[in-house]
């Protein structure tokens, strides 16, 4: 235990922690801040408000009756808008005295006055009603198309679509919240991946290049210390991921999306998925995936750390792996891992394979370390 503690302490050098903090603050502003600061943003605000109201009123799902109620709300709002339009002489003069006429207007070829009026309600005076109605109208439109299946689908995708329709799991709630979370978690994944690689890479190579192995491997503990070092690396990885997740999720809580936690992922618009966890469960799955990614890359870092000749090679060799993962692996394996557009078993298979490979490499590495001649 004392040895493990010693090795963990060696990883958390204060210089490294400063660098970690510095890099994470930069990554925060580069990747994450936008998804917190600008949520909900522009018309998203109305989307968010309507969404919250729906969850409050109808709960985690919406049945037909509740939707009829929702439509009634819409009608009421339209009435309200009609009254507003009629109260504005300029609109009446343009012949737009009801909301129906407003939407039916040929906005592709508007008259000067009409365009000015539209800009006025949407941008100038920012009449909430118009924005909100647009949002509600969109939701109703989606609901009307709820039983439609896209044209180009693989057999499995089609089956899943049909199954969802049969089980009456329709996308009824705004996709804003879940899309925001997905962007957020993907970028958190990037930040954590960089952090883990940054801290863990340099652990094993340091003792190696300093010639400490001569003393370490001739002590009673001997080469078993290598296992302790690996374990210390994993513990450090766990600590880094957990603390960064704690920080980033406490920032995320500013987005106030907890009312959606019990909504199932298929109930969000355009988010058909292979499985149907609640939003909260989905968050937990993503957290688990981040831990997996972290541990896999920590393994990779330690493998290279115990092989390469110098620090520059250590960075150089990891660039293709990290960048390759970010380009090809991150989205299907993190935010979109259960989405219908990602093959159903891609994420579980990839993670399984990567874990298996990591385990094999670690075993191979240990076997090698046990027998290796220590020359330096």
């Amino acid at each position, binding site marked *: 235990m004392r040895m493990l503690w010693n090795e963990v302490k060696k990883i958390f050098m204060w*210089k490294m922690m400063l*660098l970690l903090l*510095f*890099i994470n603050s*930069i*990554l925060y*502003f*580069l990747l994450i801040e936008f998804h917190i600061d600008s949520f909900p943003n522009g018309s998203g605000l109305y989307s968010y408000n309507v969404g919250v109201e729906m969850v409050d009123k109808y709960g985690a799902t919406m049945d037909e009756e509740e939707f009829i109620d929702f439509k009634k709300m819409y009608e009421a709002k339209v009435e309200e808008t009609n009254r507003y339009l009629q109260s504005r002489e300029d609109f009446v003069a343009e012949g737009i005295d009801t909301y129906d006429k407003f939407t039916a207007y040929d906005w592709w070829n508007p008259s000067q006055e009409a365009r000015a009026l539209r800009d006025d309600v949407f941008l100038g005076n920012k009449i909430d009603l118009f924005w909100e109605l647009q949002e509600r109208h969109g939701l109703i439109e989606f609901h009307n198309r709820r039983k439609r299946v896209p044209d180009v689908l693989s057999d499995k995708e089609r089956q899943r679509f049909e199954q969802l329709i049969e089980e009456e799991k329709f996308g009824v709630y705004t996709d804003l919240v879940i899309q925001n979370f997905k962007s957020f978690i993907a970028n958190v994944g990037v930040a954590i991946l960089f952090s883990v690689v*940054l801290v863990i*890479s*340099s652990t094993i190579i340091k003792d190696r*290049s300093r010639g400490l192995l001569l003393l370490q491997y001739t002590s009673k503990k001997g080469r078993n210390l290598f296992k302790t070092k690996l374990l210390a690396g994993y513990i450090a990885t766990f600590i880094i991921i957990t603390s960064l997740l704690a920080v980033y999720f406490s920032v995320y809580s500013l987005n106030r999306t907890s009312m959606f936690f019990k909504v199932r992922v298929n109930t969000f618009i355009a988010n058909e998925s292979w499985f149907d966890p609640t939003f909260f469960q989905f968050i937990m799955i993503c957290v688990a995936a981040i831990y997996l990614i972290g541990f896999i890359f920590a393994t990779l870092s330690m493998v290279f750390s115990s092989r*390469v000749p*110098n*620090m*520059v*090679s*250590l*960075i*150089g*060799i990891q*660039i*293709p792996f990290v960048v390759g993962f970010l380009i090809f692996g991150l989205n299907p394996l993190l935010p979109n891992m259960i989405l219908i557009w990602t093959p159903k078993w891609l994420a579980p298979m990839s993670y399984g394979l990567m874990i298996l490979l990591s385990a094999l490499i670690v075993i191979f590495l240990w076997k090698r370390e046990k027998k290796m001649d220590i020359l330096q």
Partner: protein
Amino acid sequence: MMLIILNECKKALTSPILIGLFIVFSAFNVFVIISSSDHKEELKMLNEIIDQYGRDITDNSLNRFESDIQIDLAKLNRMTASEFTSVYDFLDGLRFEDQEKYSDEQWLFIHRLQLKEMYLNMAKSIDESYEAMDIKKMGEAEIEKYLLSGNAAETLLHEYEKLSERFEEMVNNGEHKEWFFAGKAYFMHSFLFKTVFLHIIIESLLLIVLTTSLITTYEFESKTHLVAYSTKRGRKLMKDKLFASLAIATTIIVFLFAITLGTFFSVFDYSHVWKTSISSAFNWEYNFPYVAWWDLSVGTFLIGVIALVFIVLLLFVGLTFAISIAVKNSYISFFLIAAVFVLLWLLPSFMPTSSTLLFVFAYTLPTLLLAIRYSFMGSSGLILFENFEWMTMSCWTIITIVVGFMSYKRFLKIDIH
């Protein structure tokens, strides 16, 4: 002297991982170019047009072009036994099952006609679209978009006024009336100067930062520092290391450019458009065409951008050198440089939107590199300033030299343990 530098270069050149990385990067670039070259045959249509009607778009040449298309249309009408006034009418009305009625040869003809019509229609609409552009209004829209106020708004408006003058001058010169690959269809400018160039830039940066910090910290990391810095050459060895890093960086840049751009231009035939103005109305991809501050041809623009990138990358050698000497640890240097790069790029977003600092802090090397496709352009949002490139370059050359020199001077005096 030369021998020392050569020996320093060797330290980077014999690192198998760096060489491997270079190969991976080159291969990736070639892959990216080849995998997005589906439309390379279509592009050749423009070369034919330039061959036939000249590079400049004049009323005369357009008339000739149009009458040739009329002949083609007549042929199409004979082929289909109908009365189309445009190939698009034919295509719109085409039913799925009718496709097989025509032979491959006929389809080729139809597609060529379609491309010709596209270019003709675009060319015919140039005057109208350019007349509708109000540069000053665009400035105001930018101000609203970024919620600028105070000094910042004023400065931006002022620059937009200048741009407006330049725009008029450009329209009068007819710089925009030269043939180029249709931007809205092929996005060749973005592909070359954003996708391809950014690949080269980021990859070169990675390699350069790694090699420079490797060479600079080599003695400390291989524990030869006590011997090396007490020789006759002594701490001046750092100077040789700088030259060696510059030499290696140059090699990396030259080869990466040669391989990548070599592939690009052998896949895409640019032979007819070198002299076309970069401000061509066809070089119009999004809401607004690319408008350069000066009358630059595509060829000149390319050379200018390469020179710009080359110098900026060499400046990064200097900055890495300065940081590496101070830190004496290549690992930390690398991450520091990466962090500083992003930090500099983000700087403007930390500035108040009412202050000109917003623009001043955009005069940084990362901003210049990442917006390389907007170099010399007036149509580049908040970095449209005419002096952006040369000011950024000269300021940062000075900063790099000062920082490098200070770091070096400090190194001459510090204790080496």
